[in-house]
């Protein structure tokens, strides 16, 4: 049931890359503290697929440790270069996470702000996503929600969003888990 993680230092082109991904089974996995494991830098194998679920690999390099938290059936793959002098970090992501980023910034960021950081009238989703598994996320997104100060619209009738729940979930989980830093990710070739 747990997360299986592969920690390997990799060279990817000009930059040393960090490959992060999370493999999970259908139900919420127990959180694992990966920090110690990161320092161990030990390689372990990961299952390629579990039923219909996608599976990915978490590889972490150098001193930048990323903590994976509980997750559901959501899966993403993130590869990030080091932070440059301008404070930017470029990341490559899988197709789902990329489409999720695009959908989010086409429809959701109007309220939840660039990088899902929240605004004066809609919450920061980095924290909020920890409360949701995939089915809870889909329910909330499809049917909407009336909060303390704001109202989330139902998205089930908008195909631009309703066809993209999985991709949105991938993107937001990657953000919420700390795997994906702010900014525009690049689609893996």
């Amino acid at each position, binding site marked *: 049931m747990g997360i299986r993680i592969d920690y390997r230092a990799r060279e990817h082109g000009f930059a040393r890359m960090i490959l992060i991904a999370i493999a999970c089974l259908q139900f919420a996995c127990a959180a694992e503290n990966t920090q110690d494991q990161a320092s161990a830098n030990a390689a372990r194998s990961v299952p390629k697929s579990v039923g219909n679920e996608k599976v990915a690999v978490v590889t972490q390099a150098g001193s930048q440790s990323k903590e994976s938290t509980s997750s559901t059936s959501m899966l993403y793959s993130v590869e990030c270069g080091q932070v440059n002098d301008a*404070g930017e970090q470029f990341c490559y992501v899988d197709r789902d996470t990329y489409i999720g980023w695009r959908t989010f910034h086409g429809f959701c*960021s109007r309220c939840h702000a*660039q990088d899902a*950081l929240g605004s004066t009238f809609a919450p*920061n989703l980095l924290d909020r996503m920890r409360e949701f598994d995939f089915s809870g996320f889909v329910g909330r997104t499809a049917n909407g929600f009336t909060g303390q100060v704001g109202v989330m619209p139902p998205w089930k009738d908008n*195909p631009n969003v309703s066809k993209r729940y999985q991709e949105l979930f991938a993107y937001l989980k990657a953000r919420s888990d700390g795997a994906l*830093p*702010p900014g525009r990710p690049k689609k893996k070739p």
Partner: protein
Amino acid sequence: MTKRIIGIISMIGVALALIVPGTSSANSELMKLMDNPDNWAIWGGDYAGTRYSKLNQINSKNVGDLQVAWTFSTGVLRGHEGGPLVVGDTLYIHTPFPNKVFAISLNDQTILWRYEPKQNPDTIPVMCCDTVYRGLAYADGKIFLQQADTHLVALNAKTGKVIWRIKNGDPKKGETNTNAPVVIKDKVLTGISGGEFGVRGFLAAYYIKDGSLAWKAYSVGPDDEMLIDPRKTTHLGKPVGRNSSTNTWKGDQWKIGGGTTWGWYTYDPQLNLVYYGTGNPSTWNPVVRPGDNRWSMTIFARDLDTGKAKWVYQMTPHDEWDYDGINEMILADIKIKGKNRKVLVHFDRNGFGYTLDRVTGELLVAEKYDPAVNWATHIDMKTGRPQVVAKYSTHQTGVDTNTKNVCPAALGSKDQQPAAFSPRTGLFYVPTNHVCMDYEPFEVEYVAGQPFVGATLSMFPAGRVTGDGTTNLGNFIAWDAAKGKIVWSLPEMFSVWSGVLATAGDVVFYGTLEGYLKAVDAKTGKELYKFKTPSGIIGNVNTWKHKGKQYIGILSGIGGWAGIGMAAGLTGDTDGLGAVGAYRGLDKYTQLGGVLTVFALPD
């Protein structure tokens, strides 16, 4: 026989004029109120939208002694745009959704009446960029409230009782309202929001006596529905010709064409013309809507009585960046190249400050009012067209391509926050953004009542593009509209998102997103006073006089698009922001909450 008929028609005309006494009296009452600077009877202080007051009790010598006289909490947390109206002894103040109205006695600050409409909360998510509302209108003993759910309501100004209530649009189709209505003669004018939902924009005029429709003029579509006369309506001096809008859209795309009208409306009584601008064409993705997409992104001059368009000028043909053209049109009489001209001055989202002859629509000046603007090199003064730089053309770079470092960002070098004009200095005082963006269009499907954007954008300080090492997100500038030149510029940490006030005391007032009300010298820009109000300011500074004393009023309450573009992290940012780090600071300065703060000199 013919003479008799003419005689009868004349008599009917006279009789009609007598039957409709409101026609001229409402107008003359409001004109009188506006002429007396003790009132602030309309959003812009006057029909010209100058936001200039002849009051000079508070002036550049004593403004440093300003003190808070009284405050009033609206009890609402959302972004507070607009400002108070003052008519005689009463101050009227509005709130964002649910659009409460309070009438406050200036004698003792008691609430004379309050009105809170019942609106369906489903309206909230349809509203782009917070549930803001920019204010009320007064005329003929009535307060006009334009609700978010598109209901336009006339309230008895003495009691707050509803006189009439009509529906201006349908939130189910994405139509909402955020604009302040304006009363001119016997009509109240209002527009529509929803450019991100495929709404087709219009300006509507309703009779103030009963709310019945006088005319409605669409921004895009067939000539008759736009109230455009192909032979008489001109664009840069030439008749627009037949089907001037539909010819510039693919198929029937104009039906969801945007061109919404959520800004401010001004009026020239001598010319009897109303001026306003139209918003972006839908969708944001330019690739799927070839053509100039007329008359989105356009300045309209319309006859008040008939709604007929006298002239139009499209600033951003075939918009590729969301540079809505809705910002205010300030009417002023200034000297250009030694000649007195009746002009219209407009600071567009696209970063150009335009000066036009407001009689004919002739383009006189078009220059960048933020040096960072890079999407176009200049405006061709003959054709009026911007010369677009290919690498910043999101259409040319194409769908699914990230067009980087475009200046300004979608929120523009300036958004709706209205500028001011002082006839004493001849300068315009402009609250501006200094923000650039990466912009990436992608294909989307249209569904009625659903957002229809089709582009991602990321915003960051303009200094990242100009490479000058600056991180400020705004500037407060003084502008010479005859020359098209910045006279002075004050950098601000965040976008300047408040409406400006200029006064005969040679002081200019504005608010900042951190929450400061600032007073600067109108000639030099030197800061003379500042005070930290309870929340960030996106409202307009207004002034009035009561019992011989001048007051300055400002509505604070962070939110709006400023609250999203700039205020990321107000709810607790747990993440590093890298290059966009400059945005994150706002939560260190301010939190939500609507409060009117009123200032005066000590006794």
